[in-house]
């Protein structure tokens, strides 16, 4: 036997005594709660340890603060990363929504054009999306995502939502080439473009051409000096038909632009010099309508 008998007895006595003390405390604790002897013990312990706890708190406070600061910094960094990600998502959503709003506004205008324009009621039409924009100032063409399979033919007029509120849509150009699923559109500003036009509320007629001296603006040529054409007048397609049966490629009545200046460069000239600003911003086209005048 390694542990002596006396020590065995002492050990048992100590364990038994402490076990009994614990059970007594447990019982008293349930009986008295925080009153009586148990309450006195607890209050006494609190009184003894409270100053120690205060001192410990004071001593450890800088470490606790440093710990909390480090933890707060880590949390702030994590939150910063999370918030940045959320901000990027919100921005992307905002761009998408803004794009949807713009698209909606443009499509509303096209819809109103189809409901109010006589031309649109005469010819079938198809909506299209611009898939390539003008490459440079010398190549004023765009590409649409519709082609001959949708009934598109060469020379069909193309209209787009107008920035001006007096007209819903304006002429963009004409279809110059067609494939099965796409088509090229020659814009009004293309150097090769020309269209017969007239000024509303007057009998003035002429040819609309790109203004070679002022890119982005059209020139209305051939209007007689006698015509009472004024700034602000609305220019539309004329849709001329000759006596020989020749017909202009565009039907009459499609809005083109607004007269921004009228002048006479030479007293001997027989026609006025008229500048026309297109209703449609030809540099930012998204949604257009193709009037199936020749196809369809």
């Amino acid at each position: 036997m390694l542990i002596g008998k006396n020590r065995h007895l002492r050990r048992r006595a100590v364990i038994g005594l402490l076990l009994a003390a614990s059970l007594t405390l447990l019982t008293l604790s349930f009986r008295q709660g925080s009153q009586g002897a148990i309450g006195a013990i607890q209050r006494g312990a609190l009184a003894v340890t409270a100053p120690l706890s205060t001192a410990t708190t004071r001593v450890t406070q800088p470490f606790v603060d440093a710990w909390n600061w480090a933890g707060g910094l880590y949390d702030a960094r994590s939150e910063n990363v999370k918030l940045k990600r959320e901000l990027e998502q919100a921005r992307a959503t905002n761009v998408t929504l803004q794009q949807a709003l713009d698209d909606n506004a443009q499509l509303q205008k096209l819809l109103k054009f189809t409901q109010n324009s006589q031309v649109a009621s005469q010819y079938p039409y198809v909506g299209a999306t611009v898939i390539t924009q003008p490459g440079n100032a010398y190549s004023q063409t765009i590409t649409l995502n519709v082609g001959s399979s949708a009934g598109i033919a060469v020379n069909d007029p193309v209209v787009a939502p107008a920035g001006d509120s007096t007209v819903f849509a304006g002429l963009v150009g004409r279809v110059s080439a067609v494939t099965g699923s796409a088509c090229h559109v020659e814009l009004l500003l293309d150097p090769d473009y020309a269209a017969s036009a007239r000024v509303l509320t007057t009998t003035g007629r002429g040819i609309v051409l790109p203004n070679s001296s002022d890119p982005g603006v059209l020139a209305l040529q051939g209007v007689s000096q006698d015509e009472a054409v004024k700034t602000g007048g609305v220019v539309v397609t004329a849709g001329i038909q000759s006596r020989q049966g020749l017909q202009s490629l565009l039907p009459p009545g499609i809005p083109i632009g607004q007269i921004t200046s009228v002048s006479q460069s030479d007293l001997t000239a027989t026609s006025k010099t008229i500048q026309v600003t297109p209703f449609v911003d030809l540099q930012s086209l998204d949604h257009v309508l193709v009037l199936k005048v020749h196809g369809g």
Partner: protein
Amino acid sequence: MILDWVKIALAVLLLAVLQLSAMPQLTPSSATPDLLLILVVAVAMLRGVEAAVITGFAAGVLLDAMTMGTMGLSSLLYMGAGAGVALRLEPSEQALGPVGSPLPPRPALQFVYVVAATAAVQVGLALAHVLLGDSYPARYELASVIVPTLIQTAVAALVLLPLLRRLLPYRPRIDVSAIATA
């Protein structure tokens, strides 16, 4: 011997204050490391059953008093943990030569004893609260109390155990007279 008891008493007081004042502010969860239990287990490994039981009783009473909890409950659990570890390490006649003395367990094993004792005390505490009728749902107990306490106590033991080994250097606790008679 008396110096040992003074050291243990001071350690109980200091660790109780640290456990209740400083640790709650340093730990991320509502659970805190059981520093007193680490002391009880260390005493059990280095000083034997009686010292462990006395230390466990004192630590438990102080803890329950300071927290205004159910007096005696922590004492019982700490005493049980201390006695369990100490009795498991008690040398047997076969393991010990007539004049030899057993060494304390290796540091890694001491750490394992602390973890095991913490698990036992935490489970015991949860069961006691079930019996007393003021328990939380088992999932909450496990996820928010038992496991966090176990992890935090294990981490604290890595620092505290070496300090306690220095504070209470190992002393053989063989009854010399008993060996002599053997």
